[in-house]
């Protein structure tokens, strides 16, 4: 029980209207802004289309992690299991049966979603560190299966020879990466639109509730676990599509696409950009991979140290990620500080 003094303290706190209307405005322009920035990068950085393509596909993956972690509060270091499964499923489809890029995305999403649904139903009763361990374990199992199934996946050599058909039968995947990049950017934008819809749906609202206080959700008659399993599966679909997108645009799938370090790297990018904000996933991925690229090109010996300093700086000075800094600059969110 809280003491009377504490309660009075709470009661005496000023009430402040949440700047919801203005936040919604920011939300609305976010996706067109990202699409415009993506197109601008296409014109401004024609030499770096391969990197930009990787950023777009990775951003979609980090977005799936944001749904799981930022909106569901699910601690995971195994999101790459869904990414890699989607990538392998798309690659195997393309090599053996059908190399239509949309079919590859569909199969990749399906595979990622199914894996997430099954493993989610098995592990999501756990919370916190236990859950973290279980997600890592799932990732390891998937990687080991991919490693052992050499005939299908190419094992440690990777799955190569993926040659996707032209998009809609019209746009060939050229060697300069124009089609790849625009295709990846389009898929990312669609992914953002879908994620944004889900976040603002009744389901998204319930998931936010679960991440804050699962027992309170039970007290209004909901089942926290079923929300989390569905959310995990939906995010699995998006991660699977992101994996398939990588297979389509790079033509190769390696074992590291299911690996622990890819999951961890996605987490770093998400925290960098800001969790629970959708756009944070895109901005964090672009910032991390962009800085990574520039540093690695300029100083091949010490770039890891600079990446480390960059991350420490962001975490120290912008604990809510880059997006929170942008919001603070614009005064668009007058402070989470009173809400905590």
């Amino acid at each position, binding site marked *: 029980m809280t003491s009377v003094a504490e309660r009075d303290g709470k009661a005496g706190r000023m009430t402040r209207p949440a700047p919801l209307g203005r936040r919604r405005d920011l939300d609305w322009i976010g996706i067109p802004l990202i699409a415009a920035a993506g197109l601008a990068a296409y014109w401004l950085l024609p030499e770096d289309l391969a990197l930009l393509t990787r950023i777009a596909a990775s951003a979609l993956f980090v977005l799936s992690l944001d749904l799981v972690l930022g909106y569901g509060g699910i601690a995971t270091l195994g999101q790459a299991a869904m990414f890699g499964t989607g990538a392998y499923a798309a690659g195997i489809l393309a090599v053996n049966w059908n190399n239509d890029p949309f079919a590859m995305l569909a199969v990749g999403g399906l595979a990622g979603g199914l894996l997430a649904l099954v493993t989610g139903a098995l592990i999501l009763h756990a919370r916190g560190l236990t859950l973290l361990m279980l997600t890592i374990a799932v990732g390891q199992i998937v990687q080991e299966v991919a490693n052992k199934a050499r005939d299908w996946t190419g094992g440690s050599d990777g799955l190569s020879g993926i040659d996707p058909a032209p998009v809609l039968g019209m746009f060939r995947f050229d060697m300069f990466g124009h089609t790849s990049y625009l295709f990846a950017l389009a898929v990312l934008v669609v992914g953002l639109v879908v994620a944004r819809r889900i976040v603002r*749906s009744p389901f998204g*609202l319930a998931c936010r509730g679960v991440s804050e206080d699962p027992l309170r959700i039970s007290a209004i008659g909901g089942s926290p676990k079923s929300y989390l399993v569905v959310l995990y599966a939906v995010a699995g679909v998006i991660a699977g599509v992101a994996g398939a997108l990588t297979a389509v645009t790079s033509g190769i799938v390696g074992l590291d696409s299911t690996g622990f370090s890819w999951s961890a790297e996605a987490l770093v990018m998400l925290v960098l950009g800001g969790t629970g904000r959708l756009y944070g996933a895109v901005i964090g991925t672009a910032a991390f991979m962009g800085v990574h690229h520039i540093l690695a090109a300029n100083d091949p010996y010490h770039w890891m140290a600079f990446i480390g300093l960059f991350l420490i700086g962001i975490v120290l000075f912008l604990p809510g990620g880059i997006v929170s800094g942008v919001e603070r600059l614009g005064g668009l969110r007058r402070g989470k500080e009173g809400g905590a």
Partner: protein
Amino acid sequence: MTALLEVEGLSKNFGGLQVASDISMTLSAGDRCALIGPNGAGKTTFVNLVTGVIPPSAGTIRLDGRDVTRLSAAERVRLGLIRSFQVARLFKSMTVREHLELAVLQRDRRTFRLFANVARVAGLADEVAELLGSMGLTPVAHTAVGSLAYGQQRLLEIALALAMKPKVLILDEPAAGVPHSESQRILDAIDRLPKDLAVLMIEHDMDLVFRFASSIIVLAQGRLLCSGTAKQIAADPRVREVYLGSRTNAH
């Protein structure tokens, strides 16, 4: 009148510790019943047993004629057995409005709509507006709950319970911790609860108990000490015996 909540021989022991023994009670539609007792009498344990937070060692609980003893807390909620919490237990980062939207959507089982827009769910905005109005929460509808005054949080707790269209409502010390300047609003809200609702209120404050309750149940040391109308209880010497002294501690 049919009984909405029937509790029979409810008991709970943790190892050798008997925290509830052989408690029976009945609530009918329209009842206003207060559950009182000194600190440690087992009031909160009783509420947790009835709402399904902890399983009983013995006894049965029937809700609207249906045996719910083995059902989970969430299943009982779906059947209309709703509680509010003693210390406001809310989602700190959500706004007042979002709380009520969530409760109404959950009640109607519309929370698995992945691609609907909360703002456009049919009938939702009107119902939420009505709930906000009835508790005087309209001005703070868009405020994050973490920055609400405590009294308003308690009002939201009650609004949240009502949003679920309860048959039986259990209020756990609804005015506890609220400064006197704000408590009147809560008392008014309790007075205006729907008449056909069966309400059980756990309360320390005797003024509030006598103002609210038509019947009173007294618990002491995990047992039902006595029950009756407010007048009978006020005159009962056993109640005075267990209550005097411990009541002064509570405040």
